[in-house]
């Protein structure tokens, strides 16, 4: 884990309110694994004061860190205005990432909205496996193109709530169909809004299928010091809460109290 001043190589809009940022951060890139995250200080000002956590969306060209984000508040609005050549303080890589399935195992990736970010990095690292990538959005305007990530040709399906692209309805519809198709040993990886994750967890838990979820919480330090990022564990006797910044952000779906 390193704190470094990273130069912005590009920061471009890729969908409605959605930006892809490339930062030169060789030390962080050298250690980054899918599912891990970085904490970015969006400006040196005191408001907003806290760093913002972002999943690592990928790495490129040896020293470029990719961050995919949606503008949802003050911090991300400031981030969207940062220009090429400027530098930002980045802390990472942080947290526990995805555990890879064994060779030959099939994988299903299920994302909701901006939750696609860590799954893009994961998919890049699993290109040699049989994989299905399902992504859901509210509308086609929010759809994140993934051709840049070298994922063209991948077996993917899209759903939108408003039916403007792909299946009309939640991505969990696609997921239920896919999991029945992949019967007998698919590894599931998911990231997205909590209700969606909950549904994915339910579907996999019912069927006894391995599922790893990447969860999001408010977070102050990212280092395990503030203990602000608690999530309830399902192992009540052992531990009541996990800390997303260290125990996660990726968890086995069975270990969380949904």
């Amino acid at each position, binding site marked *: 884990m390193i704190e470094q001043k990273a130069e912005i190589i590009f920061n471009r809009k890729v969908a409605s309110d959605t930006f892809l940022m490339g930062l030169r951060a060789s030390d962080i890139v050298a250690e980054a694994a899918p599912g891990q995250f970085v904490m970015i200080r969006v400006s040196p000002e005191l408001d907003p*004061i*806290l*760093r913002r956590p972002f999943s690592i969306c990928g790495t490129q060209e040896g020293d470029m860190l990719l961050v995919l984000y949606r503008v949802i508040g003050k911090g991300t609005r400031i981030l969207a205005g940062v220009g090429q050549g400027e530098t930002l303080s980045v802390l990472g890589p942080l947290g526990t990432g995805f555990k890879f399935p064994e060779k030959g195992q099939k994988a299903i990736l299920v994302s909701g909205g901006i939750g696609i970010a860590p799954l893009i990095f994961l998919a890049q690292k699993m290109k040699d496996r049989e994989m299905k990538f399902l992504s859901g959005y509210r509308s086609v305007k929010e759809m994140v193109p993934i051709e840049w990530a070298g994922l063209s040709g991948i077996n993917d399906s899209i759903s939108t709530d408003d039916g403007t692209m792909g299946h009309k309805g939640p991505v969990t519809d696609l997921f239920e169909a896919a999991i029945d198709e992949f019967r007998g040993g698919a590894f599931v990886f998911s990231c997205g809004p909590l209700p969606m994750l909950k549904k994915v967890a339910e579907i996999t838990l019912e069927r006894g299928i391995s599922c790893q979820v990447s969860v999001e919480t*408010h977070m102050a*330090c990212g280092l395990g010091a503030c203990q602000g990022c608690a999530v309830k564990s399902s192992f009540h006797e052992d531990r*009541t*809460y996990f800390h997303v910044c260290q125990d996660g952000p990726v968890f086995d779906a069975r270990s969380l109290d949904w």
Partner: protein
Amino acid sequence: MTESQPELKVRIGPLELKNPVLTASGTFGYGREFSGLMDIDSLGGIVVKGLSLRPMAGNPPPRIVETPCGMLNAIGLANIGLDLFLEEKLPWLKALNTAVIVNIYGHSIDEYRAVAAGLKGIDGIAAIEVNISCPNVEQGGMAFGTDPVVSAKVTEEVLKNTDKPVIVKLSPNVTDIRSIAVAVEKAGAHAVSLINTLTGMAIDIDSRKPKLSNISGGLSGPAIRPVAVYMVYQVVRSVNIPVIGGGGIMDYRDALEFLIAGARAVQIGTANFVNPGISVEIIDGLRKFCKEQEIKRIEDIIGTLKPPF
């Protein structure tokens, strides 16, 4: 000609610190979390996460929310408890070349007594800091630190059960912080530290729910700094024991405000979350400031506030 370095050493009653910069309890974990990001040995000291007799899981999430120039937290004093602290955390802390101050709290006077006694005779602990801002279960959950008599009682009982210098950390959520400071001084405290967080609340207008599961939380960060500076100014003029100041310090200039107001050391809190290496940067900044101002010893700047006219 070799340039001499300014002397940064400060004395807090019986405790000597290599410089006046401490990390505040609850913002620096057990130290190790920051070990790859800074030279912990260069700190004046670290105050570790508040310790209770038994492990505490803490409050349900959400536990933190950002506010303008600050944050509210309601962690619920989550910690590993006395036994695990001694077994798992202290050996690493002992090997550090900096003052390790253990922050303790209890839900009853008995628990304060027991935690203090559990640390008695154990070396590698430079001092105890007593958090009196937590709720007193025997008195309807009202914080110990809001009543001078109860604050003095906690202080006395901790002193009776320890062989270490005792710093009492004062709550700002009181009518007059000076009355509490005077009470704990009379009870024998070696020093006071202030301020703990200010109680606050934030509401989500869409769901119309509090943003914290605990409803209220403790406000920290630069938003509270002027409150903290003034309280330090007041307390310094009311007691003879040393005062450790803190509240929203983000850089060495903020730290200097507290020193000029009369604090003999400072605690860095929320800034550790924003910039994990900040405490070391503040020490470097103080050293540079002393050099530029031709101040030979940092102690020479403490309490040098001038009148406005």
